[in-house]
């Protein structure tokens, strides 16, 4: 049996790539594994060979020592991979399938999952609703910044790409489906972004930029999210707006704070703020048109 090299948290500011055990269909005790999950069998799981797995700002949150994450935790919750083995209860996936794995571990069987609230699955984390791979207090499911990873409830949770070659052509985009793209999108949905909305996005890190992207995304299946007229990320570091398209959507530098006049719904940056580029014409940032919604994905 092959081993499994994985990215492991080694204390604040430190991560290492270490050898570990190849995944099995049973939860083993280890750093960060909820004791009530130890010994849990997962015949509904599949073992994936990791094709792409992203570093997330929330991983960084742990690595910066901002959580109670234990040393030895295997990191990684943004997992795209190829099914190399499947448990006895997996019916709809085949070895060789390329799949995207939501960062939420979810069972598909509880009330939350039946209501499609997979972020608060009631069965995967004895501590509280909601589970995730490679994350503190999320049940202790081993992370996917590794060569191989076990994905429980695989029939329910894994999204199979329709065509392997097509998927590999677009794998850099598709790998964003595990977390940041849906997260940016969800921020827009929950903020009520719709046609013509003016959107303020707090933070121009990957999730903020995903929210910018999402706010202008119209879906092939029927325009569920018509393009907002303007979406503006605000960041202390406009240099993190990496592309011309996101910069020209108007990354602003946040140096102090934004204030709003109570008498006029007008947003005014205080001194020190400046525009990197002229904002898109549909946005009049100082216009009387007030913001329609805002999404606050933080600045990672």
């Amino acid at each position, binding site marked *: 049996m092959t081993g499994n090299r994985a990215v492991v948290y080694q204390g604040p500011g430190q991560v290492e790539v270490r050898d570990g055990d190849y995944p099995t269909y049973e939860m083993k005790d280890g750093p960060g594994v909820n004791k009530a999950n130890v010994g849990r069998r997962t015949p509904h799981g599949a073992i994936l060979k990791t094709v792409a797995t*992203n570093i997330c700002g*929330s991983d960084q949150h742990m690595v910066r020592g901002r959580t109670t994450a234990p040393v030895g935790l295997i990191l990684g919750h943004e997992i795209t991979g190829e099914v190399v083995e499947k448990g006895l209860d997996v019916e709809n996936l085949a070895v060789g399938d390329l799949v995207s794995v*939501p960062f939420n571990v979810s069972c598909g069987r509880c009330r939350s999952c039946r209501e499609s609230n*997979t972020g608060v699955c009631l069965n995967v984390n004895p501590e509280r609703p*909601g589970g995730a791979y490679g994350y503190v207090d999320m049940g202790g499911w081993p992370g996917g910044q590794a060569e191989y990873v076990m994905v429980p409830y695989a029939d329910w949770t894994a999204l199979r790409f329709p065509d392997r070659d097509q998927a590999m052509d677009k794998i850099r985009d598709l790998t964003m*489906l595990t977390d940041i793209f849906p997260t940016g999108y969800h921020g827009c949905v*929950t903020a009520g972004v719709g046609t013509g909305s003016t959107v303020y996005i707090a933070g121009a890190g990957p999730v903020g930029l995903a929210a910018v992207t999402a706010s202008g995304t119209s879906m092939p299946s029927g325009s569920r999210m018509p393009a907002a007229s303007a979406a503006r990320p605000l960041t202390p570091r406009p*240099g993190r707006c990496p592309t011309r398209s996101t910069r020209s959507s108007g990354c602003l530098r946040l140096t102090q704070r934004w204030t709003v006049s109570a008498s006029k719904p007008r947003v005014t940056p205080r001194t020190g703020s400046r525009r990197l580029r002229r904002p898109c014409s549909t946005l009049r940032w100082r216009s009387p048109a007030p913001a329609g919604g805002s999404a606050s994905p933080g600045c990672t």
Partner: protein
Amino acid sequence: MEITRAGGGIGIPWLYVTEDPAASDPNARVGSLSLRFGLGWAKSNSFATGQTPVLRYNRELMMAILHDRVQIARNVNATVISLDAAPDGYAEFDSGVPKKFVLDPHGMLGAA
């Protein structure tokens, strides 16, 4: 809340952990956030937060990608590195570089 229009919504999908032991603010250490809830009432703002239920969106977003409707990798500056380079990726990400690091444990993305 201050910049949202009356009746506007605020979506907070990012991570706010229940505890932040290293925070400088004692309230933040126990996951408590001070905000003007009364202002939210006055403006009838709506708020939503929590883990994103990815399954609700990922199939349609996948189709948007496969049909070339979005360039999410370009917009977040997806940058492929090896698994062994992960510690460097973390360090670089920590310094605030405008990159989204994608680990490639089996060297399958080079040609892709």
